[in-house]
């Protein structure tokens, strides 16, 4: 088939396509488009590291500059994935090191990263500019030292919520004195001290530094020094925001007032309210404010928030209370994203006056609100209906009522109609997490209305398999489904087997899916890995009709993976119909 466009023209057209979904769509048009596209794609996104393997990546794409990889399932954040499950990035680093000498950006999420891996990265990718590790673990400050010492072109080192073994406070000193390119440094997740002098010197010699997120151990007294060295900062995360006495106050306030470009503030561990006004001079500039470590009461929170008229993103603890959220509703008219974390998540009745009313207020007052993550202790159908009618533009709605299976506290009914209203009115909804007392009915609503839903999280909900069936057969755009402690079993899963190939993954734990069904699914669907994660002993002698502890099903072109610990089995792949493209 002759091509009417020269390849070069096609490549040029493709260069305007930056989203990976567009790129993927384009590559499906025809073989020649596929070939052209693969030669010029330089940013690759792999949402599930086990859906492909390193060899598949390097065989298809030849000149990759940026790679993004995700490993463990989302529920790993809540300790539901046992340690040792997998998601190690080392084999990827080895293979990419072999082929992509020009790699500039590596972004990893929920992957296991070792020090050896970091050393390979540091020594193998001389052009590396960006290293972002989000929710990763397995490495220590030794690995960071190797990166600091060897990555001459590094601009961004971002450790987001990682678990780092902190062996030494001197790793920062490994950045050479001649290194001046740093633009972004996020070490907020480290719990031990880092050498302040090394930090100060690094900040002083980094004129392009825009993002600096310190960890808790950097004392407040030292903040003004840093801010004076880096008045060009756009994003700043403080350390512990407390001090003895108020001596440090005026220099801190002055330092903040010098930061004319500051747009984002975070940190604020151990807040002493008397020091909060030091940031007032920058409040009106702020578009993002993260006070989720600020264990201070509502009046202090409200005061600072009332100054933030341009705020678009607010993360806060439930100490803000309903009254504080009313302040948000009146002061922050540009608010797009609200996150309210629980201050005492494990306490049954913590007497914090944050209820559904706070969220309703914000939904009324903030017309641009589109993303919500809200932890509370009570909810009602009427509140949910109000929220959905106030804010039909919501795209991400995650509600966690702390007590599982809590009904509407006013009527004691299930919250089906409330959530039904959310999916019916918020037509652009792409992400939903539900909680509270929910029957199969809510799933019927979701299957019927939530046509743009991409990710759904369910816990302690539903009555029968019909619930799961509604979701799998109705949600056309669904790609990620995660379920825990629901009475869903084999029927709905098997009846919707082919749907699973259109999704990235399905997680089900503490449900009623049996070993037999998992095996059957794995046998019949060669392009799905049906991973049973089960830590009981004598798995081989458990009868097939017994439910598994956890099952993680994902589509893959690579068949089995070979790095599984003994508590993970891929079911139904004993026959030799495994695609092994390596």
């Amino acid at each position, binding site marked *: 088939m002759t091509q009417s466009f020269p390849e070069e023209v096609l490549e040029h057209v493709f260069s305007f396509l930056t989203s990976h979904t567009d790129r993927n769509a384009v590559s499906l048009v025809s073989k020649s488009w596929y070939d052209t596209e693969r030669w010029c794609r330089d940013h690759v996104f792999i949402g599930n590291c086990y859906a492909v393997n390193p060899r598949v990546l390097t065989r298809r794409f030849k000149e990759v500059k940026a790679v993004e990889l995700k490993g463990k399932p989302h529920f790993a*954040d809540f*300790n539901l994935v046992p340690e040792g499950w997998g998601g190690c990035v080392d084999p990827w680093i080895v293979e990419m090191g072999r082929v992509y000498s020009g790699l500039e950006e590596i972004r990893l999420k929920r992957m296991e990263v070792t020090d050896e891996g970091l050393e390979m990265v540091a020594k193998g990718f001389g052009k590396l500019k960006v290293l972002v590790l989000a929710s990763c673990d397995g490495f220590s400050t030794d690995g960071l030292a190797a990166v600091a010492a060897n990555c001459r072109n590094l601009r961004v080192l971002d450790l987001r919520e990682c678990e780092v073994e902190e062996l030494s406070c001197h790793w920062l000193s490994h950045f050479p004195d001649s290194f001046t390119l740093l633009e972004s440094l996020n070490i907020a997740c480290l719990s031990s001290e880092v050498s302040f002098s090394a930090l100060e010197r690094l900040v002083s010699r980094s004129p392009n530094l825009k993002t600096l997120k310190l960890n808790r151990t950097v004392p407040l007294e030292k903040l003004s020094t840093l801010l004076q060295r880096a008045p060009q900062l756009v994003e700043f995360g403080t350390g512990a925001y407390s001090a003895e006495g108020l001596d440090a106050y005026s220099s801190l306030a002055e330092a903040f007032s010098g930061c004319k470009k500051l747009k984002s503030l975070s940190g604020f561990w151990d807040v002493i309210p008397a020091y909060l006004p030091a940031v007032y001079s920058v409040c009106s500039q702020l578009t993002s404010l993260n006070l989720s470590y600020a264990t201070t009461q509502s009046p202090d929170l409200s005061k600072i928030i009332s100054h933030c008229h341009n705020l678009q993103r607010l993360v806060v603890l439930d100490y803000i209370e309903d009254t504080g959220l009313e302040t948000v509703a009146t002061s922050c008219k540009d608010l797009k994203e609200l996150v309210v974390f629980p201050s005492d998540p494990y306490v049954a009745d913590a007497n914090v006056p944050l209820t559904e009313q706070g969220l309703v207020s914000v939904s009324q007052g903030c017309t641009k609100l589109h993303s919500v993550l809200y932890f509370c202790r009570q909810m009602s159908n009427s509140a949910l209906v109000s929220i959905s009618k106030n804010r039909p533009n919501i795209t991400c709605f995650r509600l966690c009522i702390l007590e599982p299976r809590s009904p509407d506290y006013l009527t004691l009914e299930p919250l089906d109609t409330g959530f039904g209203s959310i999916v019916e009115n918020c037509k652009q909804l792409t992400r939903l997490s539900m909680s509270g007392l929910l029957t199969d009915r809510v799933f019927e609503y979701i299957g019927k209305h939530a046509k743009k839903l991409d990710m759904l999280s369910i816990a302690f909900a539903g009555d029968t398999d019909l619930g799961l069936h509604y979701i799998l057969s109705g949600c056309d755009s669904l790609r990620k489904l995660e379920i825990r402690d629901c009475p869903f079993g084999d029927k709905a899963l098997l009846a919707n087997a082919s749907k699973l190939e259109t999704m990235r993954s399905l997680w089900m734990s503490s449900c009623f899916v049996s070993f037999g*069904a998992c095996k059957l699914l794995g046998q019949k669907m060669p392009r799905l890995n049906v991973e049973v994660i089960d830590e009981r002993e004598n798995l081989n002698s458990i009868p097939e009709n017994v439910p598994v502890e956890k099952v993680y099903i994902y589509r893959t072109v690579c068949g089995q993976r070979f790095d599984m610990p003994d508590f993970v089995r891929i079911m139904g792949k004993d026959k030799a119909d495994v695609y092994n493209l390596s």
Partner: protein
Amino acid sequence: MDVTLGLLDQLPSSDGGGGVPSGGSTTMRSILTGSKSKEDNNKNTMVVSTEVTSSYPAVVDDESLDGLELGLGLSIGGGGLKSKTAVTGGWSQYARILTAKDFPTTLVSEPNNSCSSSSSVNIPNSSASGTKRTATDSVSPPNGTSVVGWPPVSKAHRMPNLANQMKSPTENFISKSEQNKSKNRTVGIKDYSDERNGTANKKYRSVKVNMDGTLIGRKVDLNAHTSYEMLAQTLHEMFFSKWPSKEAVKPSRLLDGTSEFVLTYEDKDGDWMLVGDVPWEMFISSVKRLRIMKNSESNELASRCEENSERYRD
């Protein structure tokens, strides 16, 4: 490839003759073509043009519910409701997976009970919450705090008050999780604590080894070794095998203090000790990590060790 979605009749316990017609009623192709146009497909080698048939009718409403279930020929014990009991029947012999449904309403009013399950604290206010929960009757869960991974707050946002006044709930949280590690087999609730080293459940037990002068540490699996000699051999291979033999450090010399380097370890209490003073089993249970130290520094350590080693003598 024609994949029948009606896989239900092929479950092991079925009688095979279940009423699922293989020539299905509704094609599922619409789902597949739908997904082609919205893209997320990283794996384009996957040809998404399979025609798939389904025996699930396109529309499900209340009336057809029963008919639906029969039509599927639910041969797991035959028929909708029965299938459930067949499944539950098989559970009893093995460790059950407890779900919220399994928890009886009575659990709520017994503070002792909820304390014995994993994770957290039952605060004195339980009577108040108990009242709230009896109103919800048949679906009352346990005190929601006693469930693993719930509420879904990631580690970074758990217990932000760690250093402040909330010390006791935190301590309770950790000690409860310790208790439950030993109970987890029978109860079936797992508590995945954050400990990295030294949990008895693990079959491998690796610790970090750093050598003075080397940037990158290594990891060694202690459970794969049965004696100090074996360990020294492994470490020798890891760190010294590249060295020319003129300054050869024989494995045993790591242990006897005659070489330039000395092997030390950090124990549970955070103290650094010389390796080799205590019986192997005791060493294994208390070691957190290893360090190959230059001899000059170890003299100071040795004198401290003299004092500390008295702890191990009865």
